[in-house]
Protein backbone atom coordinates (compact mmCIF):
# COMPACT_ATOMS: atom_id res chain seq x y z
CA UNK A 1 0.00 0.00 0.00
CA UNK A 2 1.33 3.44 -0.86
CA UNK A 3 0.22 6.82 0.28
CA UNK A 4 -1.70 8.72 -2.37
CA UNK A 5 -0.08 11.81 -3.78
CA UNK A 6 -2.01 14.58 -5.49
CA UNK A 7 -5.45 15.90 -4.61
CA UNK A 8 -7.36 14.20 -1.83
CA UNK A 9 -10.09 11.83 -2.95
CA UNK A 10 -13.61 12.25 -1.67
CA UNK A 11 -14.28 8.66 -0.57
CA UNK A 12 -11.20 6.48 -0.69
CA UNK A 13 -10.79 2.84 0.31
CA UNK A 14 -7.30 2.16 1.56
CA UNK A 15 -6.44 -1.54 1.54
CA UNK A 16 -3.58 -2.90 3.63
CA UNK A 17 -2.60 -6.42 4.58
CA UNK A 18 -1.50 -5.72 8.14
CA UNK A 19 -2.35 -3.33 10.93
CA UNK A 20 1.09 -1.77 10.63
CA UNK A 21 0.75 -1.06 6.92
CA UNK A 22 -2.72 0.36 7.50
CA UNK A 23 -1.45 2.69 10.19
CA UNK A 24 1.37 3.97 8.00
CA UNK A 25 -1.05 4.93 5.24
CA UNK A 26 -3.65 6.34 7.60
CA UNK A 27 -1.06 8.39 9.49
CA UNK A 28 -0.03 10.06 6.23
CA UNK A 29 -3.65 10.73 5.25
CA UNK A 30 -4.43 12.16 8.69
CA UNK A 31 -1.38 14.37 8.66
CA UNK A 32 -2.34 15.83 5.32
CA UNK A 33 -5.96 16.46 6.26
CA UNK A 34 -4.96 18.10 9.53
CA UNK A 35 -2.30 20.19 7.80
CA UNK A 36 -4.92 21.50 5.38
CA UNK A 37 -7.09 22.52 8.29
CA UNK A 38 -9.77 19.85 8.26
CA UNK A 39 -11.76 18.77 11.27
CA UNK A 40 -11.24 15.00 11.44
CA UNK A 41 -13.57 12.38 12.92
CA UNK A 42 -11.90 9.00 13.56
CA UNK A 43 -13.87 5.80 14.27
CA UNK A 44 -11.78 2.93 15.56
CA UNK A 45 -11.28 0.11 17.99
CA UNK A 46 -9.89 0.66 21.45
CA UNK A 47 -8.38 -2.19 23.41
CA UNK A 48 -10.12 -4.03 26.23
CA UNK A 49 -9.34 -1.25 28.67
CA UNK A 50 -11.01 1.32 26.40
CA UNK A 51 -8.20 3.85 26.82
CA UNK A 52 -7.36 6.14 23.92
CA UNK A 53 -3.85 6.52 25.37
CA UNK A 54 -3.20 2.93 24.24
CA UNK A 55 -4.36 3.55 20.65
CA UNK A 56 -1.68 4.15 18.02
CA UNK A 57 -3.11 7.62 17.35
CA UNK A 58 -1.83 8.73 20.72
CA UNK A 59 1.55 7.06 20.32
CA UNK A 60 4.69 7.45 18.22
CA UNK A 61 2.97 5.84 15.21
CA UNK A 62 1.15 9.11 14.64
CA UNK A 63 2.67 12.47 13.80
CA UNK A 64 3.15 15.25 16.33
CA UNK A 65 0.41 17.17 14.49
CA UNK A 66 -2.01 14.27 14.97
CA UNK A 67 -1.31 13.93 18.67
CA UNK A 68 -1.71 17.67 19.14
CA UNK A 69 -4.98 17.59 17.18
CA UNK A 70 -6.35 15.04 19.62
CA UNK A 71 -5.58 17.47 22.45
CA UNK A 72 -7.07 20.52 20.73
CA UNK A 73 -10.18 18.79 19.44
CA UNK A 74 -9.32 19.12 15.73
CA UNK A 75 -9.28 15.31 15.76
CA UNK A 76 -12.12 13.48 17.52
CA UNK A 77 -12.04 9.76 18.22
CA UNK A 78 -15.06 7.51 18.70
CA UNK A 79 -14.86 3.85 19.74
CA UNK A 80 -16.80 1.45 17.48
CA UNK A 81 -18.96 0.00 20.31
CA UNK A 82 -20.15 3.52 21.14
CA UNK A 83 -20.86 4.17 17.47
CA UNK A 84 -22.93 1.00 17.25
CA UNK A 85 -24.97 2.15 20.25
CA UNK A 86 -25.58 5.52 18.64
CA UNK A 87 -26.61 4.25 15.21
CA UNK A 88 -28.67 1.32 16.40
CA UNK A 89 -27.21 -0.93 13.71
CA UNK A 90 -29.05 0.80 10.86
CA UNK A 91 -27.86 2.66 7.79
CA UNK A 92 -30.20 5.54 8.66
CA UNK A 93 -28.68 5.78 12.13
CA UNK A 94 -25.20 5.98 10.70
CA UNK A 95 -26.24 8.60 8.16
CA UNK A 96 -27.66 10.67 11.00
CA UNK A 97 -24.43 10.49 12.99
CA UNK A 98 -22.36 11.34 9.91
CA UNK A 99 -24.53 14.33 9.07
CA UNK A 100 -24.55 15.60 12.67
CA UNK A 101 -20.78 15.45 12.87
CA UNK A 102 -20.39 17.16 9.51
CA UNK A 103 -22.76 20.01 10.28
CA UNK A 104 -21.37 20.50 13.78
CA UNK A 105 -17.88 20.88 12.31
CA UNK A 106 -19.04 23.31 9.65
CA UNK A 107 -20.99 25.31 12.25
CA UNK A 108 -17.81 25.52 14.34
CA UNK A 109 -16.12 27.16 11.39
CA UNK A 110 -13.97 24.38 9.99
CA UNK A 111 -13.58 24.86 6.25
CA UNK A 112 -13.34 21.17 5.46
CA UNK A 113 -14.16 17.93 7.22
CA UNK A 114 -12.55 14.48 7.03
CA UNK A 115 -13.83 11.17 8.33
CA UNK A 116 -12.07 7.86 8.61
CA UNK A 117 -12.85 4.52 10.12
CA UNK A 118 -10.82 1.42 10.80
CA UNK A 119 -11.70 -1.95 9.34
CA UNK A 120 -15.13 -2.73 10.76
CA UNK A 121 -14.63 -6.52 11.19
CA UNK A 122 -18.15 -7.24 9.97
CA UNK A 123 -18.53 -10.78 8.61
CA UNK A 124 -21.16 -9.81 5.99
CA UNK A 125 -22.81 -13.19 6.32
CA UNK A 126 -25.66 -12.62 3.86
CA UNK A 127 -26.94 -10.34 1.10
CA UNK A 128 -28.95 -8.26 3.57
CA UNK A 129 -25.83 -7.35 5.51
CA UNK A 130 -24.03 -6.50 2.29
CA UNK A 131 -26.92 -4.26 1.25
CA UNK A 132 -26.86 -2.43 4.61
CA UNK A 133 -23.10 -2.00 4.30
CA UNK A 134 -23.54 -0.52 0.81
CA UNK A 135 -26.25 1.86 2.06
CA UNK A 136 -24.04 3.04 4.89
CA UNK A 137 -21.16 3.74 2.53
CA UNK A 138 -23.58 5.45 0.15
CA UNK A 139 -24.26 7.96 2.92
CA UNK A 140 -20.65 9.10 2.74
CA UNK A 141 -20.96 9.52 -1.04
CA UNK A 142 -24.06 11.72 -0.70
CA UNK A 143 -22.44 13.99 1.87
CA UNK A 144 -19.14 14.19 -0.03
CA UNK A 145 -21.02 15.27 -3.16
CA UNK A 146 -22.61 18.21 -1.34
CA UNK A 147 -20.07 19.28 1.27
CA UNK A 148 -16.27 19.69 1.59
CA UNK A 149 -15.84 16.19 2.99
CA UNK A 150 -13.07 13.63 2.52
CA UNK A 151 -13.59 10.05 3.67
CA UNK A 152 -10.94 7.37 4.17
CA UNK A 153 -12.28 3.85 4.70
CA UNK A 154 -9.61 1.52 6.03
CA UNK A 155 -9.74 -2.13 4.95
CA UNK A 156 -7.22 -4.38 6.65
CA UNK A 157 -7.39 -7.76 4.95
CA UNK A 158 -5.77 -9.52 7.90
CA UNK A 159 -8.82 -8.87 10.09
CA UNK A 160 -11.64 -9.34 7.58
CA UNK A 161 -12.98 -12.44 5.89
CA UNK A 162 -12.75 -12.95 2.14
CA UNK A 163 -16.43 -12.07 1.58
CA UNK A 164 -16.05 -8.75 3.35
CA UNK A 165 -12.88 -7.91 1.41
CA UNK A 166 -14.41 -8.64 -2.00
CA UNK A 167 -17.67 -6.77 -1.26
CA UNK A 168 -15.83 -3.85 0.25
CA UNK A 169 -13.81 -3.47 -2.95
CA UNK A 170 -17.00 -3.66 -4.98
CA UNK A 171 -18.76 -1.00 -2.92
CA UNK A 172 -15.72 1.30 -2.92
CA UNK A 173 -14.56 0.62 -6.49
CA UNK A 174 -14.63 4.31 -7.44
CA UNK A 175 -11.57 5.14 -5.35
CA UNK A 176 -9.26 2.35 -4.27
CA UNK A 177 -5.70 2.38 -3.03
CA UNK A 178 -4.57 -1.22 -2.69
CA UNK A 179 -1.25 -3.03 -2.42
CA UNK A 180 0.52 -2.38 -5.73
CA UNK A 181 -2.56 -1.18 -7.60
CA UNK A 182 -5.34 1.34 -7.36
CA UNK A 183 -8.45 2.56 -9.12
CA UNK A 184 -10.20 5.88 -9.62
CA UNK A 185 -13.45 6.75 -11.35
CA UNK A 186 -13.13 10.14 -13.06
CA UNK A 187 -16.74 10.19 -14.17
CA UNK A 188 -15.98 9.01 -17.71
CA UNK A 189 -13.64 6.09 -17.21
CA UNK A 190 -12.67 3.77 -14.43
CA UNK A 191 -8.89 4.12 -14.36
CA UNK A 192 -6.79 1.31 -12.92
CA UNK A 193 -3.06 1.55 -12.38
CA UNK A 194 -0.22 -0.53 -10.97
CA UNK A 195 0.37 -4.29 -11.04
CA UNK A 196 -2.56 -6.70 -11.32
CA UNK A 197 -1.43 -10.14 -10.24
CA UNK A 198 -2.68 -13.28 -8.53
CA UNK A 199 -2.09 -11.80 -5.11
CA UNK A 200 -4.70 -9.08 -5.67
CA UNK A 201 -6.85 -10.86 -8.26
CA UNK A 202 -9.81 -11.46 -5.95
CA UNK A 203 -9.78 -7.84 -4.80
CA UNK A 204 -9.43 -6.52 -8.32
CA UNK A 205 -12.25 -8.83 -9.37
CA UNK A 206 -14.44 -7.51 -6.53
CA UNK A 207 -13.84 -3.92 -7.59
CA UNK A 208 -14.44 -4.74 -11.25
CA UNK A 209 -17.72 -6.45 -10.41
CA UNK A 210 -18.78 -3.42 -8.37
CA UNK A 211 -17.93 -1.07 -11.22
CA UNK A 212 -19.96 -3.14 -13.69
CA UNK A 213 -22.89 -3.33 -11.28
CA UNK A 214 -22.78 0.44 -10.81
CA UNK A 215 -22.99 0.90 -14.59
CA UNK A 216 -26.17 -1.15 -14.72
CA UNK A 217 -27.67 0.74 -11.75
CA UNK A 218 -26.98 4.15 -13.29
CA UNK A 219 -28.36 3.06 -16.66
CA UNK A 220 -31.44 1.72 -14.90
CA UNK A 221 -32.20 5.11 -13.34
CA UNK A 222 -33.51 6.38 -16.66
CA UNK A 223 -30.68 8.85 -17.20
CA UNK A 224 -30.05 7.61 -20.72
CA UNK A 225 -26.54 6.60 -19.69
CA UNK A 226 -24.97 3.51 -21.25
CA UNK A 227 -24.35 0.59 -18.90
CA UNK A 228 -20.93 0.01 -20.52
CA UNK A 229 -17.90 0.21 -18.26
CA UNK A 230 -14.95 2.04 -19.80
CA UNK A 231 -11.87 0.64 -18.10
CA UNK A 232 -8.72 2.66 -18.70
CA UNK A 233 -5.67 0.42 -18.37
CA UNK A 234 -3.03 2.88 -19.56
CA UNK A 235 -1.53 3.05 -16.08
CA UNK A 236 -1.26 -0.72 -15.61
CA UNK A 237 2.30 -2.03 -15.71
CA UNK A 238 1.67 -5.75 -15.37
CA UNK A 239 -1.25 -8.16 -15.70
CA UNK A 240 -0.94 -11.88 -15.09
CA UNK A 241 -3.13 -14.81 -16.09
CA UNK A 242 -5.13 -14.66 -12.85
CA UNK A 243 -6.26 -11.07 -13.39
CA UNK A 244 -6.83 -11.66 -17.09
CA UNK A 245 -9.09 -14.51 -16.03
CA UNK A 246 -10.95 -12.18 -13.66
CA UNK A 247 -11.56 -9.80 -16.57
CA UNK A 248 -12.84 -12.67 -18.72
CA UNK A 249 -15.08 -13.93 -15.91
CA UNK A 250 -16.48 -10.43 -15.46
CA UNK A 251 -17.03 -10.16 -19.21
CA UNK A 252 -18.95 -13.42 -19.23
CA UNK A 253 -21.20 -12.37 -16.38
CA UNK A 254 -22.19 -8.87 -17.57
CA UNK A 255 -25.83 -7.97 -17.93
CA UNK A 256 -27.36 -8.27 -21.39
CA UNK A 257 -26.19 -5.48 -23.67
CA UNK A 258 -23.49 -4.29 -21.30
CA UNK A 259 -19.89 -4.10 -22.55
CA UNK A 260 -16.58 -3.97 -20.78
CA UNK A 261 -14.50 -1.61 -22.90
CA UNK A 262 -10.76 -1.89 -22.22
CA UNK A 263 -8.89 1.27 -23.17
CA UNK A 264 -5.16 1.04 -23.90
CA UNK A 265 -4.65 -2.47 -22.48
CA UNK A 266 -1.06 -3.71 -21.96
CA UNK A 267 0.05 -5.66 -25.03
CA UNK A 268 0.48 -8.93 -23.15
CA UNK A 269 -3.06 -8.67 -21.83
CA UNK A 270 -4.35 -8.93 -25.39
CA UNK A 271 -2.54 -12.24 -25.79
CA UNK A 272 -3.82 -13.52 -22.46
CA UNK A 273 -7.41 -12.53 -23.22
CA UNK A 274 -7.27 -14.27 -26.58
CA UNK A 275 -5.86 -17.39 -24.94
CA UNK A 276 -8.68 -17.28 -22.38
CA UNK A 277 -11.29 -16.98 -25.16
CA UNK A 278 -12.35 -13.38 -24.61
CA UNK A 279 -16.13 -13.04 -24.84
CA UNK A 280 -17.64 -10.52 -27.25
CA UNK A 281 -18.77 -8.36 -24.34
CA UNK A 282 -15.13 -7.36 -23.84
CA UNK A 283 -14.08 -4.72 -26.34
CA UNK A 284 -10.47 -3.61 -26.80
CA UNK A 285 -9.72 -0.01 -27.70
CA UNK A 286 -6.33 1.47 -28.50
CA UNK A 287 -5.54 5.06 -27.56
CA UNK A 288 -6.82 7.56 -30.09
Amino acid sequence: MTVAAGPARAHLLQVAESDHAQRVGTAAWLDRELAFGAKVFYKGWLGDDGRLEKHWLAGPGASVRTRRALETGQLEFMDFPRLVDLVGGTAEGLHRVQAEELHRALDEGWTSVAMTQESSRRPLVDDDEVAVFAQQEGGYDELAARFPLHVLCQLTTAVENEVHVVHSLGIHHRDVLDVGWGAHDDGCRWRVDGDLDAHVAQRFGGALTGALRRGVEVAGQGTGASPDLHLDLSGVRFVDVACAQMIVLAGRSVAGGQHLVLHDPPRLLRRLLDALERPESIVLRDPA
Partner: protein
Amino acid sequence: MTTGGAALLHAAVVGEDPEDVVQLCLPAVRAALDAGGDVEIVLDRRGVRAFREVLPDAALRLPSPAEVVPTTLAHRLAAAAPGGVVVGRSCADAAATDREPAEDALTLLLADLSLSVLCVYPPALVDVARRSHPWLLTPDGPVPSPDHHPPSSSSPVPAAVLGTSVAQVAVPDGSALADLRERFAAVVAEAGLAGERAEVAVLAAHEAMLLACGADLTPGRPPGDLPPGEHLLDVRRSTGAVVAECRGRPRAARDPSAADPRYAQLARLCDHATVHDDREGRTVRVLTPTR
Protein backbone atom coordinates in the same frame (compact mmCIF):
# COMPACT_ATOMS: atom_id res chain seq x y z
CA MET B 1 4.18 -38.76 5.71
CA THR B 2 4.07 -42.21 4.20
CA THR B 3 6.38 -44.38 2.22
CA GLY B 4 5.63 -45.67 -1.24
CA GLY B 5 4.18 -42.42 -2.55
CA ALA B 6 4.10 -41.16 -6.08
CA ALA B 7 7.84 -40.53 -6.27
CA LEU B 8 11.14 -41.95 -5.09
CA LEU B 9 11.82 -42.42 -1.41
CA HIS B 10 15.58 -42.66 -1.16
CA ALA B 11 16.27 -42.97 2.54
CA ALA B 12 19.18 -43.88 4.77
CA VAL B 13 18.61 -46.49 7.46
CA VAL B 14 21.28 -46.07 10.11
CA GLY B 15 21.73 -49.14 12.30
CA GLU B 16 24.23 -51.89 13.08
CA ASP B 17 21.97 -54.49 14.60
CA PRO B 18 19.93 -56.38 11.92
CA GLU B 19 16.86 -56.46 14.17
CA ASP B 20 16.95 -52.65 14.46
CA VAL B 21 17.21 -52.34 10.69
CA VAL B 22 14.22 -54.63 10.24
CA GLN B 23 12.09 -52.61 12.66
CA LEU B 24 12.88 -49.38 10.81
CA CYS B 25 12.17 -50.88 7.38
CA LEU B 26 9.19 -53.01 8.30
CA PRO B 27 6.38 -50.44 7.73
CA ALA B 28 7.58 -49.74 4.18
CA VAL B 29 8.15 -53.42 3.45
CA ARG B 30 4.75 -54.47 4.78
CA ALA B 31 3.00 -51.68 2.87
CA ALA B 32 4.66 -52.79 -0.35
CA LEU B 33 3.82 -56.47 0.22
CA ASP B 34 0.20 -55.61 1.05
CA ALA B 35 -0.04 -53.63 -2.19
CA GLY B 36 1.44 -56.47 -4.21
CA GLY B 37 4.77 -54.71 -4.79
CA ASP B 38 8.17 -56.35 -5.09
CA VAL B 39 10.44 -56.40 -2.07
CA GLU B 40 14.13 -57.02 -2.54
CA ILE B 41 16.51 -57.53 0.38
CA VAL B 42 20.18 -57.18 -0.57
CA LEU B 43 21.86 -57.92 2.75
CA ASP B 44 24.26 -60.47 4.17
CA ARG B 45 23.08 -63.68 5.77
CA ARG B 46 22.38 -62.10 9.20
CA GLY B 47 20.34 -59.33 7.66
CA VAL B 48 18.27 -61.69 5.53
CA ARG B 49 17.66 -63.96 8.50
CA ALA B 50 16.34 -61.05 10.55
CA PHE B 51 13.76 -60.23 7.86
CA ARG B 52 12.81 -63.90 7.50
CA GLU B 53 12.12 -64.18 11.22
CA VAL B 54 9.59 -61.35 11.01
CA LEU B 55 8.18 -62.22 7.59
CA PRO B 56 8.57 -66.00 7.30
CA ASP B 57 6.12 -66.48 4.43
CA ALA B 58 6.59 -63.26 2.49
CA ALA B 59 7.66 -63.40 -1.15
CA LEU B 60 11.00 -61.65 -0.70
CA ARG B 61 13.59 -61.49 -3.44
CA LEU B 62 17.03 -62.14 -2.00
CA PRO B 63 19.83 -61.48 -4.48
CA SER B 64 23.38 -61.95 -3.28
CA PRO B 65 25.09 -58.69 -2.32
CA ALA B 66 28.04 -59.76 -4.45
CA GLU B 67 25.84 -59.55 -7.55
CA VAL B 68 24.86 -55.91 -6.95
CA VAL B 69 27.41 -53.37 -8.17
CA PRO B 70 26.82 -50.01 -6.45
CA THR B 71 27.94 -47.84 -9.37
CA THR B 72 25.36 -49.41 -11.68
CA LEU B 73 22.65 -49.87 -9.08
CA ALA B 74 20.59 -46.91 -10.34
CA HIS B 75 20.47 -48.34 -13.85
CA ARG B 76 19.50 -51.72 -12.48
CA LEU B 77 16.64 -50.27 -10.42
CA ALA B 78 15.41 -48.02 -13.23
CA ALA B 79 13.50 -51.02 -14.58
CA ALA B 80 11.94 -51.88 -11.20
CA ALA B 81 8.17 -52.22 -11.00
CA PRO B 82 6.33 -49.30 -9.31
CA GLY B 83 5.52 -49.62 -5.64
CA GLY B 84 8.50 -51.77 -4.75
CA VAL B 85 10.96 -51.60 -1.87
CA VAL B 86 14.68 -52.33 -2.01
CA VAL B 87 16.68 -52.72 1.21
CA GLY B 88 20.45 -53.00 0.88
CA ARG B 89 23.84 -51.77 1.92
CA SER B 90 25.75 -52.05 -1.33
CA CYS B 91 26.61 -48.36 -1.35
CA ALA B 92 27.67 -48.31 2.29
CA ASP B 93 29.99 -51.23 1.64
CA ALA B 94 31.42 -49.71 -1.55
CA ALA B 95 34.74 -47.89 -1.80
CA ALA B 96 34.55 -44.36 -0.35
CA THR B 97 35.08 -42.80 -3.78
CA ASP B 98 32.14 -44.71 -5.28
CA ARG B 99 29.74 -44.30 -2.39
CA GLU B 100 28.32 -40.81 -2.83
CA PRO B 101 28.27 -40.78 -6.66
CA ALA B 102 26.28 -44.01 -6.49
CA GLU B 103 23.79 -42.47 -4.05
CA ASP B 104 23.46 -39.27 -6.15
CA ALA B 105 22.83 -41.40 -9.21
CA LEU B 106 19.98 -43.13 -7.37
CA THR B 107 18.49 -39.77 -6.34
CA LEU B 108 18.71 -38.30 -9.82
CA LEU B 109 17.90 -41.19 -12.12
CA LEU B 110 15.07 -42.70 -10.11
CA ALA B 111 13.45 -39.41 -9.05
CA ASP B 112 10.23 -40.05 -10.93
CA LEU B 113 9.85 -43.69 -9.93
CA SER B 114 7.40 -44.85 -7.32
CA LEU B 115 10.02 -46.79 -5.44
CA SER B 116 11.49 -46.96 -1.94
CA VAL B 117 15.25 -47.46 -1.82
CA LEU B 118 16.29 -47.97 1.79
CA CYS B 119 20.08 -47.85 2.18
CA VAL B 120 21.47 -49.44 5.32
CA TYR B 121 24.47 -47.64 6.82
CA PRO B 122 26.47 -48.44 9.95
CA PRO B 123 26.50 -45.72 12.65
CA ALA B 124 30.15 -45.04 11.87
CA LEU B 125 29.08 -43.67 8.47
CA VAL B 126 26.12 -41.64 9.73
CA ASP B 127 27.53 -38.39 8.32
CA VAL B 128 27.82 -39.91 4.85
CA ALA B 129 24.34 -41.36 5.17
CA ARG B 130 22.79 -38.01 6.07
CA ARG B 131 24.71 -36.14 3.41
CA SER B 132 23.93 -38.48 0.54
CA HIS B 133 20.26 -39.23 1.18
CA PRO B 134 17.26 -36.89 0.81
CA TRP B 135 15.45 -38.82 3.53
CA LEU B 136 16.26 -40.56 6.81
CA LEU B 137 14.21 -43.50 8.02
CA THR B 138 13.32 -43.08 11.71
CA PRO B 139 11.00 -44.96 14.07
CA ASP B 140 8.41 -42.28 13.19
CA GLY B 141 8.83 -42.84 9.47
CA PRO B 142 10.84 -41.00 6.83
CA VAL B 143 11.97 -37.45 7.59
CA PRO B 144 13.89 -35.08 5.32
CA SER B 145 17.63 -35.23 5.88
CA PRO B 146 18.76 -31.79 7.03
CA ASP B 147 22.29 -32.41 5.76
CA HIS B 148 21.34 -33.43 2.25
CA HIS B 149 22.13 -30.80 -0.33
CA PRO B 150 20.75 -31.95 -3.63
CA PRO B 151 22.55 -30.81 -6.74
CA SER B 152 20.69 -28.07 -8.60
CA SER B 153 19.71 -30.67 -11.13
CA SER B 154 17.68 -32.72 -8.72
CA SER B 155 15.46 -33.34 -11.69
CA PRO B 156 16.79 -35.05 -14.82
CA VAL B 157 17.85 -31.72 -16.42
CA PRO B 158 21.68 -31.58 -16.52
CA ALA B 159 23.07 -28.67 -14.51
CA ALA B 160 25.34 -27.51 -17.32
CA VAL B 161 22.34 -26.66 -19.45
CA LEU B 162 20.86 -24.29 -16.89
CA GLY B 163 23.74 -21.88 -16.46
CA THR B 164 25.04 -20.42 -13.24
CA SER B 165 22.84 -19.01 -10.51
CA VAL B 166 22.93 -15.21 -10.57
CA ALA B 167 20.11 -14.38 -8.15
CA GLN B 168 17.89 -16.07 -5.62
CA VAL B 169 14.60 -14.62 -4.41
CA ALA B 170 12.61 -16.03 -1.52
CA VAL B 171 8.89 -15.88 -2.24
CA PRO B 172 7.14 -16.54 1.08
CA ASP B 173 3.70 -15.37 -0.10
CA GLY B 174 1.87 -13.60 -2.87
CA SER B 175 3.01 -10.16 -1.81
CA ALA B 176 6.58 -11.17 -2.77
CA LEU B 177 5.65 -11.80 -6.39
CA ALA B 178 6.36 -8.17 -7.22
CA ASP B 179 9.90 -8.61 -5.92
CA LEU B 180 10.28 -11.77 -8.00
CA ARG B 181 9.27 -9.87 -11.12
CA GLU B 182 11.56 -6.97 -10.37
CA ARG B 183 14.62 -9.15 -9.78
CA PHE B 184 13.99 -11.34 -12.78
CA ALA B 185 13.38 -8.32 -15.00
CA ALA B 186 16.76 -6.93 -13.96
CA VAL B 187 18.55 -10.13 -15.02
CA VAL B 188 16.60 -10.27 -18.26
CA ALA B 189 17.59 -6.69 -19.03
CA GLU B 190 21.23 -7.43 -18.26
CA ALA B 191 21.04 -10.33 -20.67
CA GLY B 192 20.04 -7.92 -23.41
CA LEU B 193 16.33 -8.64 -23.72
CA ALA B 194 13.97 -5.69 -24.09
CA GLY B 195 10.45 -4.84 -25.14
CA GLU B 196 7.78 -7.48 -25.43
CA ARG B 197 10.26 -10.36 -25.24
CA ALA B 198 11.44 -9.15 -21.85
CA GLU B 199 7.86 -8.65 -20.66
CA VAL B 200 6.92 -12.14 -21.73
CA ALA B 201 9.94 -13.61 -19.96
CA VAL B 202 8.99 -11.86 -16.71
CA LEU B 203 5.38 -12.98 -17.01
CA ALA B 204 6.52 -16.55 -17.63
CA ALA B 205 8.73 -16.52 -14.51
CA HIS B 206 5.82 -15.14 -12.48
CA GLU B 207 3.44 -17.82 -13.76
CA ALA B 208 6.09 -20.50 -13.21
CA MET B 209 6.24 -19.63 -9.52
CA LEU B 210 2.45 -19.81 -9.21
CA LEU B 211 2.52 -23.21 -10.92
CA ALA B 212 5.34 -24.39 -8.65
CA CYS B 213 3.28 -23.46 -5.60
CA GLY B 214 0.08 -25.03 -6.88
CA ALA B 215 -1.94 -21.78 -7.04
CA ASP B 216 -5.35 -22.70 -8.37
CA LEU B 217 -6.35 -21.63 -11.88
CA THR B 218 -9.48 -23.61 -12.54
CA PRO B 219 -11.29 -22.27 -15.61
CA GLY B 220 -14.50 -20.47 -14.72
CA ARG B 221 -13.52 -19.90 -11.11
CA PRO B 222 -11.74 -16.99 -9.41
CA PRO B 223 -8.01 -17.81 -9.39
CA GLY B 224 -6.17 -18.46 -6.16
CA ASP B 225 -3.35 -16.51 -4.54
CA LEU B 226 0.11 -17.96 -4.05
CA PRO B 227 -0.09 -20.05 -0.87
CA PRO B 228 2.42 -19.14 1.87
CA GLY B 229 5.51 -21.36 2.09
CA GLU B 230 9.25 -21.59 1.58
CA HIS B 231 9.23 -20.98 -2.15
CA LEU B 232 12.33 -19.91 -4.03
CA LEU B 233 13.18 -18.43 -7.40
CA ASP B 234 16.67 -19.27 -8.64
CA VAL B 235 17.64 -17.21 -11.67
CA ARG B 236 20.24 -18.89 -13.87
CA ARG B 237 22.03 -17.35 -16.77
CA SER B 238 24.16 -18.91 -19.48
CA THR B 239 25.61 -17.40 -22.64
CA GLY B 240 22.46 -18.22 -24.56
CA ALA B 241 19.57 -18.22 -22.14
CA VAL B 242 18.01 -17.04 -18.90
CA VAL B 243 16.29 -19.67 -16.81
CA ALA B 244 13.77 -19.04 -14.04
CA GLU B 245 13.89 -22.05 -11.74
CA CYS B 246 10.96 -21.92 -9.30
CA ARG B 247 10.78 -24.33 -6.38
CA GLY B 248 7.57 -24.60 -4.44
CA ARG B 249 5.62 -26.96 -2.26
CA PRO B 250 2.08 -27.37 -3.54
CA ARG B 251 -0.33 -28.24 -0.73
CA ALA B 252 -2.23 -30.67 -2.90
CA ALA B 253 -0.01 -32.79 -5.10
CA ARG B 254 -1.36 -32.87 -8.60
CA ASP B 255 0.14 -34.27 -11.75
CA PRO B 256 2.11 -31.53 -13.49
CA SER B 257 0.59 -32.55 -16.74
CA ALA B 258 0.03 -30.52 -19.86
CA ALA B 259 -3.67 -30.57 -18.95
CA ASP B 260 -3.04 -28.26 -15.98
CA PRO B 261 -4.56 -24.94 -17.06
CA ARG B 262 -1.69 -22.90 -15.67
CA TYR B 263 0.86 -25.11 -17.40
CA ALA B 264 -1.07 -24.65 -20.63
CA GLN B 265 -0.88 -20.88 -20.19
CA LEU B 266 2.80 -21.05 -19.28
CA ALA B 267 3.63 -23.10 -22.35
CA ARG B 268 2.25 -20.28 -24.51
CA LEU B 269 4.57 -17.77 -22.90
CA CYS B 270 7.99 -19.36 -23.21
CA ASP B 271 10.18 -21.41 -25.52
CA HIS B 272 10.68 -24.19 -23.05
CA ALA B 273 9.03 -25.12 -19.77
CA THR B 274 9.51 -28.17 -17.58
CA VAL B 275 7.67 -29.23 -14.45
CA HIS B 276 9.07 -31.79 -12.10
CA ASP B 277 7.46 -33.18 -8.96
CA ASP B 278 9.32 -35.07 -6.31
CA ARG B 279 9.01 -35.60 -2.59
CA GLU B 280 10.55 -32.23 -1.86
CA GLY B 281 7.98 -30.34 -3.88
CA ARG B 282 7.73 -29.07 -7.40
CA THR B 283 10.32 -27.46 -9.63
CA VAL B 284 9.23 -25.42 -12.63
CA ARG B 285 11.81 -24.10 -15.07
CA VAL B 286 11.20 -21.72 -17.92
CA LEU B 287 13.93 -20.96 -20.40
CA THR B 288 14.16 -17.77 -22.43
CA PRO B 289 16.80 -17.63 -25.19
CA THR B 290 18.78 -14.41 -25.24
CA ARG B 291 20.15 -14.67 -28.76
